[in-house]
């Protein structure tokens, strides 16, 4: 669930570059009429509606509530355990919003790149940082529609086949 106390930072010079159109209008061009539910005030606080389980119920507690008849099939691992996988994550704890911080870990491996680490010479935490750099692209925050102009449906109708869902797009053939 959202972090309720987080305050969204005001857009600044570093904010990604574009904004959406104003709130939607209906097809007559006027604002959508506001029924009571449409843009309501925040709802009253509420807890889990059905007390049987909550999103934060750890697996063991949940299974305990269920009577434990299936207990033998369930993991006994603590929630924080991250099993070692072929692609070890530098994080061994439950995921937090804390910055992806490898600076401390880097400090452990200063010096020769051949310094051995628990994960081998080039694997593990150093590689983790490089991984995220590989996944990141500046274009992720750039407007993908910036260089595009709206193209009208009428301009392209001649290009498109008839888009009937029952139209297979292939000519019928007759048995001869």
């Amino acid at each position, binding site marked *: 669930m959202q972090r309720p106390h*987080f305050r*969204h*930072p005001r857009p600044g010079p*570093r*904010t*990604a570059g574009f*904004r*959406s*159109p*104003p709130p939607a*209008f*209906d097809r007559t061009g006027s604002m959508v009429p506001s*029924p*009571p*539910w*449409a*843009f*309501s*005030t*925040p709802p009253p606080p*509420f807890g889990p*509606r*059905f007390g*049987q*389980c909550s*999103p934060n119920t750890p*697996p063991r507690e*949940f299974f305990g509530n*269920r009577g434990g*008849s*299936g207990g033998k*099939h*369930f993991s006994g691992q603590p*929630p924080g355990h*991250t*099993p070692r996988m*072929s*692609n070890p994550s530098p994080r061994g704890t*439950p*995921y937090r919003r804390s910055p992806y911080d490898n600076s401390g870990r880097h400090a452990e491996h200063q010096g020769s790149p051949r310094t051995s680490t628990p994960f081998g010479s080039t694997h593990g935490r150093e590689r983790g940082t490089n*991984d995220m750099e590989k*996944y990141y*692209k500046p274009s992720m*925050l750039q407007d*993908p529609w910036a*260089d*595009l102009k*709206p*193209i009208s*449906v009428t301009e392209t109708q001649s*290009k498109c*086949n008839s888009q009937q*869902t*029952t*139209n*297979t*797009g*292939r000519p019928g053939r*007759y*048995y001869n």
Partner: protein
Amino acid sequence: MKIAVEGCCHGELDKIYESISYLENKEGVKVDLLLCCGDFQAVRNEGDMKCMAVPPKYRSMQTFYKYYSGEKKAPVLTIFIGGNHEASNYLQELHYGGWVAPNIYYMGYAGVVRFRGVRIGGLSGIFKSHDYKKGHFEFPPYNQDTLRSVYHIRNIDVFKLKQIKMPLDVFMTHDWPRGIYHYGNTNQLLHKKKFLRQEVESGILGSPAAAELLEHLQPSYWFSAHLHVKFAAVMQHQAKNNASPKVTKFLSLDKCLPHRDFLQIVEVADRPGSSQNLEYDPEWLAILKATDNLQKPLCNFWNPPQDNGLHTRWDFSASQEAMMEVVSDLSGDLCIPENFCLTVPAYDPNRPQPNAHPTYCTNPQTTELCATLGLTDKYALAGQGAQNYRVEGATEEEEDEDNQSTGSTDEPSEYPTDTSVLSSSYNPDEITIEDEWEEEEEGVGCAEEKGTDAVVPEGQDSDRDSSPSRETASRLVLPPPRAPPETEAPRRSSLSLLLPPPSSSLSTSASLSQGSSEEEGGLTLARVPKRTSGETQGLPIHSGGTPQIKRRNQNIYTAVEDEESEG
């Protein structure tokens, strides 16, 4: 608010969330919502993995199970639709939508939700014409046909979405609306994906159902994935009712791999005073209530009601009164309850259970929603009544599109790209070269040659109920389907064209095949099944090698469509 949009997830939740966190820290931004456009792979355990249409050698548990078990928690509210690589058994439980894990919400077969006043809609699956008119009849354990048909879009869901009258801000489909590629840089697209040229130029790439919805809904944003390429388009719709023409910004994204365009941050204006929690959408729920009785979970074709003098009602849009009734049903609280709870054990890497069977049971979230709104749990109905409905519903006629079915391919054929050096697991790119899952004309058997999938080998019905025993008082654990009487087998064999006799009644798709006329007494034509017969689920290897007889004149054998809307 900032919405992160992700293309195909393929279970790479760790990487996606890490990427978002990295981006947030690097750029000094805060992401409020993550939208994932399918192939989410909400695989909880080994049993779920067998309900995913992926060849065994590419199957990998990936990382979702950690979020399911509670080991990790999604750092940002995540909403996703289904694609063509999903733990279909799990998603079917939540066919009206629901939490698959804390803070991760699945939209169901189709759905609309609201977040901070922004209306977000979605349609799960990919389009395949030969399954489009069927009900959601599939039920695990799946056979080789239902393993795939389960994620094929159905006209009932498109019909429901077409009842929406109020504007949508965002809409998601896994495959592309057909024709959208003409509204962007088509040349650049074809430069990136040369193999799409013929389909683009023929205008057959993409989903016609999604195209219909795009024309009807005209949302501000439309996000898709499936083709593993980033493509942007801006479509200006035809003006309606003297209003200014609306514009839809379309964006498709890639899958989560290094150096790929799998993520995009989009700024969408939220509405002041709106709830900070994920909310139900009253218009959508009112439509669900109004259309609840329209279709049964049958494999027979269903035709939506039209204004043609044959139906008493064809407009199921939500009136103000209907929406107020929904609000009343919810006791005035539109927030989606945080009622996720584990229903099956999560994968334990220290204690793997490779022989685990898929579970099939109702989900308490769906049970609760159905009770609140008076809806039918169609998934439970499919499981309980599949046997009976196959017999009763046989009088429905079907339009035969066996050899002319179109739709989105399961995987876009493309060059084997450089896979992640980090992952030695499932690589969809390789699958596109080796497998031809949806090549119905050739009847090529897929790579799933082992009977350890969700395909249940013959004679093992008794093993199906091997899920751990636990309290079921509050949930319905559905009994395993029964096998048909053996006396039917010889009759089917006389009509089967080079196909082995059926081994089980699980093959609901068999109603399209040659055996149905005798079994169900309604169909008068024996047709060659378009694909490998679902009746051969117990013999996947043989069915894979069975030649398909192709007729060139299926049209003249097409039975008259039944005009009734009752499915």
